[in-house]
């Protein structure tokens, strides 16, 4: 089960993020998880949203540089060492993380992260085999 994430290139100036987010808000697209990484020149804003295909098309129409890709939403125990269970599986199999960010969910595991690796399907297989929950969009739905 993978989740569609959209990434948007953000100009390095005040108000750039606000422009992107307001495009989504106007069309009543809900942002489930968000992360912003910055380089010295620009930022990359990553979203998990309620309608990823619509969001991408909308932002492209507004002239933004947008890409979409599959990522994993993984459940953790909200305890010290909860995340190590995940990283151990990856390390043992020689998989390096591209990036990762946390979000709030309704899962019984209490904590959740979005992560991306070079081989997303293989990663999903490894985590599932290790008994670590990998979620679909249901994880974002309000109970």
């Amino acid at each position, binding site marked *: 089960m993978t989740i569609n994430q959209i990434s948007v290139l953000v100009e390095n100036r005040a108000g750039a993020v606000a422009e992107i987010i307001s495009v989504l808000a106007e069309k009543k697209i809900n942002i489930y998880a968000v992360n912003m990484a910055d380089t010295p020149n620009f930022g990359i804003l990553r979203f998990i949203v309620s309608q990823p295909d619509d969001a991408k098309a909308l932002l492209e129409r507004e002239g933004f540089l947008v890409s979409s*890709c599959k990522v994993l939403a993984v459940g953790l125990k909200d305890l010290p060492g909860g995340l190590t269970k995940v990283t151990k599986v990856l390390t043992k199999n020689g998989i390096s993380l591209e990036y990762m960010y946390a979000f709030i969910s309704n899962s019984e595991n209490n904590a959740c992260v979005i992560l991306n690796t070079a081989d997303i399907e293989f990663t999903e297989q490894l985590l599932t085999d290790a008994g670590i929950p990998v979620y679909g969009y249901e994880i974002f739905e309000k109970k």
Partner: protein
Amino acid sequence: MNEIFFDKEKETMKRRDIEALQLERLKWTVNRCYDKVPYYKEIMDKAGVKPSHIQKLSDISLLPLLSKADMRENYPFKLFASPTEEIVEIHASSGTTGKPVVGAYTRNDLDAWSECMARIIAASGVTREDIAQISFGYGLFTGAFGLHYGLQKVGCMVVPISSGNSAKQLMLMEDFGVTVLIATPSYGVYLSELAKDKGISDHLKLRVGLFGSEVCTPEMRDQIEENIGIIVTDNYGLTEIGGPGVSGECLERDGLHINEDYYLCEIIDPDTCEPLPEGETGEVVVTPLWKEAFPIFRYRTKDLATITYEPCRCGRTSARMTKVMGRTDDMMIIKGVNVFPSQIESVLFTKPHIGPHYQLILRKKNFMDTLEVQVELIDSSLLERYRELDALQNDIRGSLKSVLGLDCKVTLVPPRTIQRFEGKAKRIIDKRNEEQA
């Protein structure tokens, strides 16, 4: 390739005949300057040269060189050799660096100018069956009218839309079945991108683009050709010497054929002002041989190029100049290194994932010059791969370093954030005198 000539006899003259004609017309021009324009008489007298001293072509080097400063000093009409009642048209440079340079044309001048333009247009493969859209700004600028007259002389149907309103440009291009586009290279790139984005490139009948008034690197040309599937040729000229019409590319695109019976071109060392031998790169100095209203000799263009006298494969015997490699005043001196924007452009056009627009920003940091090259990232797939973004930046930086001998900062910016230009592009922002370290 079936080469098209406008005046085959003139365009394929023997070298000896070209030179004889040039000498005759040079004498006529120098006489006219000396007799009719007091300023020219004064500077020639000061240099100790009389029109009678011009006995062979190389005697041209006896004449003093003229530059923009001479034009300014005589603003607006003091260099005119014809009375107002014989002058039928005026043009002027943009005057971005001060008072504009004003050029004047008699009826005969317009005929000669049209003839030069018609030859350049025909050399690009354009015929009377073509429909030509002129997206140069009409007005005092010589480009639009020069091409307009030349295209009409060839017999084309001219669409004088002028610059701006890009959506309408494309609409007319599609509806009228326009086959020839006249624009600056940077506006050409912009229109071709827009046509591609709107998905109408395939509906256009465009086949030839004559792009001028700023440097068009081969890489930029390839980009336009790829976007809208046309053949792009370059042509050359400037307001002070009558506008476009000095030279233009044939379909071989191996140099710009000089209309030698109308222009005498020299290459000089810009520092010593000595003439350079054939094949060496230097400043282009032009003497128009046809001008009644506004004659001028040995005008320093500040453009850098090389001239060859080898005949071309197309059959024309005229001398050819290379594309302008840069301007002596476009040249940036960064940490003591001479850098031309065209060198940077050539590197950028070979790189994947980035767009054709760029901006150069010069700053001073701790009393050292720095160069930042901003270029648009257009490939969204790189957003998922930091390492490739990094690799792309390093790759561009490395190539620039090897070409320029200078380390610069490369900044990738979002698409469509770099300013577009409808006329000449202004790509250099020099902040070295504003920001102190």
